[in-house]
């Protein structure tokens, strides 16, 4: 039996390659400017970080509204650090760690407030103006919603935030091996869900 094809990022362990060194230097430069009190660097930092922070918060909380709150909280906490930002050695990892923790806090508060399903959360989206792809994105988002919070988080960090397993371990507070194991389990589970989706008789 042939396994149904999945998305490109699901088929292999391919990670988008970027000029990581240049990006890291830009992050450090922005953090240094903020540590010096130049708040104009907030705009550049938002351009650098907002997408990753928002996506991580969305995949962890399952709610676009909560993700927006997390983004705001993370940037507020960052701005409050002041000169301490100069001591941050890995700015992106530090920011994603703050995002991870804040998202967990928010999920806990939300669960106390109300039990809200996340099946309709838009974990993936298609390019605008493509209704067919939009339907596919919705279907895959519903499958992703059936993963655990931790599995969703490691998938996002690995495939859409260009993080290594060591980075993921530092961000989520687990050993590197655990991060890799979570990724493997998430991929396996998503493949099984895809198989059932394509062939309900199985």
């Amino acid at each position, binding site marked *: 039996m042939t396994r149904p094809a999945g998305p490109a*990022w699901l088929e292999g362990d391919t990670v988008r390659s970027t000029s990581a060194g240049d990006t890291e230097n830009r992050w450090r430069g922005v953090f240094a400017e903020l540590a010096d009190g130049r708040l104009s660097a907030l705009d550049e930092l938002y351009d650098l970080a907002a*997408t990753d922070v928002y996506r991580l918060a969305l995949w962890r909380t399952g709610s676009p509204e909560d993700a927006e709150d997390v983004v705001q909280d993370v*940037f507020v906490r960052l701005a409050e650090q002041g000169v301490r930002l100069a001591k941050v050695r890995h700015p992106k990892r530090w920011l994603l760690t703050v995002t991870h923790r804040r998202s967990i806090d928010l999920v806990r508060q939300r669960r106390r407030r109300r039990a809200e399903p996340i099946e309709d959360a838009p974990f993936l989206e298609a390019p605008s103006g493509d209704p067919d792809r939009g339907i596919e994105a919705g279907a895959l988002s519903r499958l992703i919603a059936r993963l655990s919070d931790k599995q969703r988080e490691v998938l996002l960090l690995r495939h859409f935030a260009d993080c290594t397993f060591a980075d993921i371990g530092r961000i989520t507070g687990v050993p590197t091996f655990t991060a890799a194991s979570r990724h493997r389990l998430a991929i396996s589970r998503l493949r099984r869900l895809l198989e059932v989706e394509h062939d309900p008789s199985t």
Partner: protein
Amino acid sequence: MTRRPDPFPGVLAPPQAPPELRQRVIAAARAAADGADEPDRWARIWESRPVRLAWAASIGALIFGHLVIGGPVGRRSAQPAIPLAAAVETEHELAEIVGLERMTVDLPGWEVHIARDPVQSEPLTTDEEPS
């Protein structure tokens, strides 16, 4: 079973942050940074020279009071908690307790048999010739 066409091409990606979020986030961060520049109440107290002098003076007064006024109290506390007569009596009682006679196995009229094996405790017979 034929291989299905790829239903999830790589064009799918997690959504970007909403455009209207940018202004809100940066404004909140700027406000937080401005607030962070102002020292909080405890920092202002710590950095205040008169308050630090008052704190040092109060500590000095406490030390002076302890040395001058608390002197007799310190001497009183150096006296033994138990009077000497009572201490001697206590030592005598302790000596009697320690000196009590203990039951010993060599008292006259006592015999102690330790039989580890009942068979071995039987008297030996010499009727049989040794082989």
